């Protein structure tokens, strides 16, 4: 960490510190760009909803906390930002004020708080068994103090990491995601899926690499268990998406699955896998934000929320569905679109790690999931452009520039970053290297 700035010294060991490192900067840029794009989109979308002052207030405040989280230099600061981010993003979920949205917001709140509480538990133990709470490459635990308590520390590590995984939709704490997305306004769903889940990912990265340290965790049952959880999530998410008709919920399950790709890479604990993870974080943000913006556009103009109702809609909304097609191709992982490279690195990282069974199981499941992804994404576009004979065509029209331009930018990014992969890949490779 460089440029460490201490905002507040609460006690000797507890300080609020911010600093910048490559990983943090990456996430900061990612979420900020997404936030701006979705923000532009929301200027038009807001005609669809009430209480906009409140919406945008919390929208901006959530970004502030999220940005602060990316710049957090120690466990305490990260936890503080995490909690506040949860509290401030909750009103975005319940914005529409329906009973379902309020219930969904509470579910989001309590799953997140439960996860954060488990994460907090980690802090208690790190305080005693570690040298500092600040993020340090290689971990902060003191081998002398841990001696004799390894089981305890491993359990603490497992639970705290899985706890933060709640925000990232890791099984079994993922249930809030599919409930929250359909009821939230589209811009909110976009940032929720695209960016806020990445906060969970970042927290896990910090814990795994810079608090507990790869040396402690590599090869232990903790690593295996976490990878298994990630794989379950990958598979389950895709399966559930496959069967879901409500579009935003389908995308939500997709998020559950895709973010666990990232987590898989993080848990595999080698440079290649981590690179794959970071790349996929970027790709997924872009693509998922784009998907949700498209879904929002469709809802905005046609009030249709179910995929089955959208047959033939592509003809009426070509830009939207065209972008949708691009995003789908990217998410499935078809070169040269963004999405292929990350999966490649994830698979090779997993294979090179050498874990029993999981080494080959992970790539296999990734492949399976890719097929399922295709299965749940392609039909939308296909049926959108080529409805079957005799099916009634849906009504709709294309939207305003404010909504289309961000979508197009994202679509363009999906293509361009896929083709010109090197700059991003190099930057992220450097970032990943700092973690070891």
């Amino acid at each position, binding site marked *: 960490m460089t440029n460490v700035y201490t905002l*507040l010294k*609460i*006690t000797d060991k*507890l300080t*609020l510190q911010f600093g910048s490192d490559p990983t943090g900067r990456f996430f900061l840029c990612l979420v900020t760009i997404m936030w701006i794009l979705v923000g532009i989109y929301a200027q038009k979308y807001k005609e669809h909803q009430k209480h906009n002052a409140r919406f945008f207030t919390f929208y901006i405040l959530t970004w502030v906390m999220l940005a602060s989280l990316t710049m957090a230099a120690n466990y*305490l600061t990260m*936890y*503080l930002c995490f*909690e*506040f981010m949860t*509290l401030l993003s*909750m*009103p975005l979920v*319940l914005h*529409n*004020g*329906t*009973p379902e*949205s*309020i219930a969904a*917001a*509470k579910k989001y*709140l*309590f799953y997140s*708080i*439960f996860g954060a*509480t*488990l994460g*907090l*538990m980690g*802090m*208690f*133990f790190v*305080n*005693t068994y570690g040298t500092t709470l600040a993020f340090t490459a290689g971990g902060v635990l003191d081998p002398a103090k841990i001696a004799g308590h390894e089981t305890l520390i491993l359990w603490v590590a497992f639970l705290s990491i899985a706890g933060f995984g709640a925000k990232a939709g890791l099984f079994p704490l993922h249930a809030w995601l599919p409930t929250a997305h359909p009821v939230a306004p589209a811009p909110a769903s976009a940032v929720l899926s695209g960016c806020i889940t990445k906060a969970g990912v970042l927290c896990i990265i910090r814990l795994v690499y810079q608090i507990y340290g790869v040396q402690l965790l590599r090869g232990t049952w903790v690593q295996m268990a976490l990878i298994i959880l990630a794989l379950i999530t990958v598979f389950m998410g895709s399966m559930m998406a496959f069967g879901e008709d409500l579009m935003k919920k389908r995308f939500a399950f997709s998020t559950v699955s895709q973010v666990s790709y990232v987590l898989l890479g993080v848990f595999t604990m080698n440079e290649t896998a981590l690179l794959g993870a970071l790349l996929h974080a970027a790709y997924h943000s872009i693509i998922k934000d784009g998907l949700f913006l498209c879904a929002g556009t469709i809802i905005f103009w046609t009030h249709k929320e179910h995929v089955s109702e959208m047959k033939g809609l592509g003809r009426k909304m070509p830009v939207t569905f065209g972008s949708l097609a691009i995003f789908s191709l990217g998410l499935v992982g078809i070169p040269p679109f963004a999405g292929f490279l990350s999966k490649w690195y994830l698979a090779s990282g997993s294979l090179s790690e050498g874990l029993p069974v999981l080494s080959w199981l992970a790539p296999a499941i990734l492949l399976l999931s890719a097929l399922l992804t295709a299965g749940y994404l392609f039909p939308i576009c296909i049926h959108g452009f080529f409805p079957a004979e005799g099916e009634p065509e849906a009504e709709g029209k294309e939207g305003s520039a404010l909504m289309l331009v961000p979508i197009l930018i994202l679509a363009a990014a999906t293509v361009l970053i896929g083709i010109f992969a090197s700059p991003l890949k190099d930057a992220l490779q450097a970032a990943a290297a700092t973690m070891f």
Partner: protein
Amino acid sequence: MNGIAILIVIMLPILGGALLPLLDFDARKARMYYVMAIVLATSVLCLSLISGSEGTQFVLYHLTSTIDIAFRIDRFGSVFALLVSVLWPLSTLYAFEYMSHSHKRNRFFGFFTMSFGITLGVAFSGNLITMYLFYELLTLSTLPLITHDGSREAKVAGVKYLVYSIAGATAAFIGMIAVLTRGGSLEFNVIGLGSAVTEANRNFLDAAFLFMFFGFGVKAALFPLHGWLPTAGVAPTPVTALLHAVAVVKSGVFAIGRVVYYTYDAGYLAGSIVQKVALWFAAFTIVYGTVMAWKELHFKKRLAYSTVSNLSYILFAFLLATPQGLTAGLLHMIFHGLMKIALFFVAGAVMHQSGKTYVTELGGFAKAMPISFGVFTIASVALIGVPPLCGFLSKYAIAVAAVDEGSVSGYLGIAALLISAVFTSMYLLTIVVKAYFPGEGFDPASLKDVKEANWYMTLPLIALAVLMIVLGCLPGGLTQFIAGTLADAFPGL
């Protein structure tokens, strides 16, 4: 000279309060000035004693050859006295407005003020018997406050309170005398039981400890002796807030702290079977109180169960019998006092302004009473334990103390703490969400008569909110003050 000052600081509110029904003010203003003058004078005097006269000891009377009525100003007592003397003026101000439409106000403020002096008596006691004296007097002086409105419910609550409290105090008394007869000392002079601890006496002293633990545990709302607290929610809010979130219940916790560190000494308890038993009860109460709070829909009862749970955080910390446990417990004693009193004040403000008593009826209130619910949100977030508010620090301190102590019971307590944190968020944040986001179908016109309370009630709220934030970010002075207890309680350190 300082010894007499202790006596003055205790007797001034007691006599002032006792005189009130005799002076029988008719005019509201006259009563207000009188009461506030006494309360403020006492607080100021108390604060000056805490800061300047530490170490004073004063024997008032030798009751028998082995028992004195004595006072002392040590850091442990000063911490409690600090909490009480800061919060009493705020609560008195709040109570003026809250009770403005009530009857028998002279009697109410008489006993309310007397309780102040008696609580200070508990804080400044120099031995267990003196503390027992004031402990019993506290029960008697707070009883009329619970039964104040004279309804059937209030009388039942009063009887329940009396039965539980007297049972507990008598059991504690028996434990005290048991220690005394075996050669232990009841003085808070920190040599522990000294020579009384022999193999032969061990079981006897263990039993005596349990008597005192469960006896004082009644006021500290330990399961299964907590039953009086939720029922006492029928009392007027200033009573529930100050007395049953701060003065009375913290006296119970304080008493147990005195028994653990200043009568028995930490070394005796560490690792013993009674410590395990006590820790398990505390851990269970933490979870029990939280779950019951979550299930409860009556606003004040929900907060009462929350108090039950939080008191056991403090007990748990004390029972760890380590220096960190002591300081963590004291820190939570203060912070919880601030947070809980703020929460109760808001509940009271809601009741006072609109008559609503159930959490399900609070939809949209945040707009009608913005200051109150703003403070409620701050206090809730603090109680859940989100940094940088004060509640985080005390919970963190307790958990870290448990990790350092390293026993299985300690870890159990950490688990209880974490479960409780999650449930706390559930039972508090649902209120916050409901108040701010009542959802569609809410008719704003239904709240058009509900206005924010006047400055008597909102000023204390704002002051408390500021304290919660400032102490959360800059606790240095306070933690240092609390750390001063270690010199006494752990002389070897």
